[in-house]
């Protein structure tokens, strides 16, 4: 339903997003996860045609959003980060206006409006001026606007931001209910929200795709492995490769290395975090290997990884420059 291919957007010299590729199936709810400034809004704006991409292409329901913008837009409902509301209009007037610019025939407008007012529970504020209604209602009017015309694709940019906890639950329920019928892309920087609502998650950071998986898959990555923190005194690169070669170790990440550890032969403290298989306990093997090589283990403990940690790990990896040199092996 939505195909994003090799999408790049540069702002002057700064990069918005880089070589982003992913697709969303019919009826799927895709979560778009990343820290603020990761490029979520930029990507959504390109999908909806508000921004033009520097390179790459986006297809919505088979229509290229750059070459066939009108056909693509007819099939997209978009809720931007700030709901695009005219404050001096009533909710009624606003929804009628949106029907008009979306080209919904006059005879069917009343039906469409009645449906979204019902779905978003806008009854109590229907006749009121938008400037006088609460933040929660404004957000719901924004969502109602996106739903008008029954678009096959919904693009929702941080739909629950600024709402109180009860409103957040209501909006999530609403969005979950829309899945199946609509194909939805939803952005958030709150991980549990995405895992509750979405069938699949795209994690991006600094404009690059970090991971695509189901929330269960992400969770399995955690539950299927354990994280072991190890502090060893020894030469950095060799410690990493030796530890990585042990059976049951999936990947090794270098967290910190003392200056002394950089020179080969001599030793400094090296802090590693190991992703290990759940089934095998590598601690003993690790102990004997290190003892054999004469590198003392100073500390060794299991670390629990929450979903938040995975998110943080996936999105902060780039900042640990030392870590990028370390190859994963299993």
């Amino acid at each position, binding site marked *: 339903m939505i195909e994003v291919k090799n999408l790049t957007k540069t*702002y002057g010299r700064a990069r918005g997003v880089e070589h982003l590729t992913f697709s969303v199936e019919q009826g799927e709810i895709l979560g778009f996860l990343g820290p603020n400034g990761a490029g979520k809004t930029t990507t959504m*704006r390109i999908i*909806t*045609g*508000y*921004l*033009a991409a520097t390179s790459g292409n986006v297809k919505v329901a088979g229509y290229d959003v750059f070459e066939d913008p*009108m056909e693509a*837009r*007819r099939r*997209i409902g*978009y809720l*931007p*980060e*700030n709901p*695009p*509301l*005219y*404050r*001096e*209009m009533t909710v009624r*007037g606003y929804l009628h*206006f*949106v029907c*008009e*610019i*979306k*080209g919904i025939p006059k005879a069917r407008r009343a039906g469409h409006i009645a449906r979204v007012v019902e779905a978003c529970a806008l009854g109590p504020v229907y006749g009121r001026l938008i400037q006088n209604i609460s933040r929660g209602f404004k957000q719901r009017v924004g969502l109602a*606007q996106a739903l008008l015309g029954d678009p096959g694709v919904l693009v929702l940019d941080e739909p629950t931001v600024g709402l109180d906890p009860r409103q957040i639950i209501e909006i999530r329920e609403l969005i979950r209910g829309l899945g199946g019928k609509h194909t939805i892309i939803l952005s958030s920087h709150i991980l549990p929200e995405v895992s509750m609502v979405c069938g699949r998650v795209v994690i991006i950071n600094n404009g690059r795709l970090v991971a695509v998986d189901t929330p269960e898959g992400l969770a399995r990555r955690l539950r299927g492995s354990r994280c072991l923190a190890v502090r060893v005194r020894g030469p950095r690169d060799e410690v990493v490769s030796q530890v990585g070669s042990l059976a049951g170790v999936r990947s090794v990440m270098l967290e910190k290395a003392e200056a002394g550890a950089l020179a080969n032969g001599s030793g400094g403290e090296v802090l590693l975090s190991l992703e290990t298989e759940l089934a095998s306990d590598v601690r003993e093997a690790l102990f004997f290997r290190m003892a054999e090589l004469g590198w003392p283990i100073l500390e060794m403990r299991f670390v629990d990884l929450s979903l938040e940690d995975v998110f943080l790990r996936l999105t902060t990896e780039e900042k640990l420059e030392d870590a990028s040199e370390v190859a994963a092996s299993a």
Partner: protein
Amino acid sequence: MLKTWSIFKREVASYFLSPIAYVMGAVFLLLSGYFFSIILMATRSAGLQGTFGNMAVTFMFVAPALTMRLLAEEKKLGTDELLLTSPVSITSIVVGKYLASVLTYLVFLAATLVYVAVLRHYGNPDMGPIYSGYLGMSLLGASCLAAGTFASALTENQMVAGVVGFGILLLFWILGWVSAAVPGPVGHAISMLSILKHFDDFQKGIMDLSHIIFYLSFIFVFLFLAVRTIDSRRWSA
């Protein structure tokens, strides 16, 4: 076409639901009324010749204030994300909004028909120059609003849009003085771009097609630039 109408309707409602139209209308009509009375008392002739000229200059000051909101505010409030991601062309958006400002102006102008009623009641004015004067006023006003609409497309700051719009109009006004300083065909050609120069004949009762074409071209060029400006924003930010 239908969508231009929707944008137009919403914009007209927005003009008359906010104080803008009333304040601008009051200022414009107060000054116009002042010019009308003073000129009438001074000349004691049943005509609107001098009044039209002063109204035209007054409106050049009012127009940027009337249009500065049009596109700048949409950008500022983020409502442009709705319009630009809906199946509506940028031309429809710009033209619809522009026409709303023109209608607002024509409402102001219609209020000045009181002067004509006064003249006809107490005197016997020559109606020719009055008809042509109103046509000229409509075209000149519509041109000022087109330049203002373009200025509003440039920025999300209404103040900036207003000042830039006024700057553009001032430039096209003083171009008319160039012919005095620069002799020959060059000076003449430049002064032909002046928006007030083309208004003179309308005041005298002359409806020359070239003047009408000038104003229509002026409007077309600035609306075209406004559309291109909005379109180009997708590439930069």
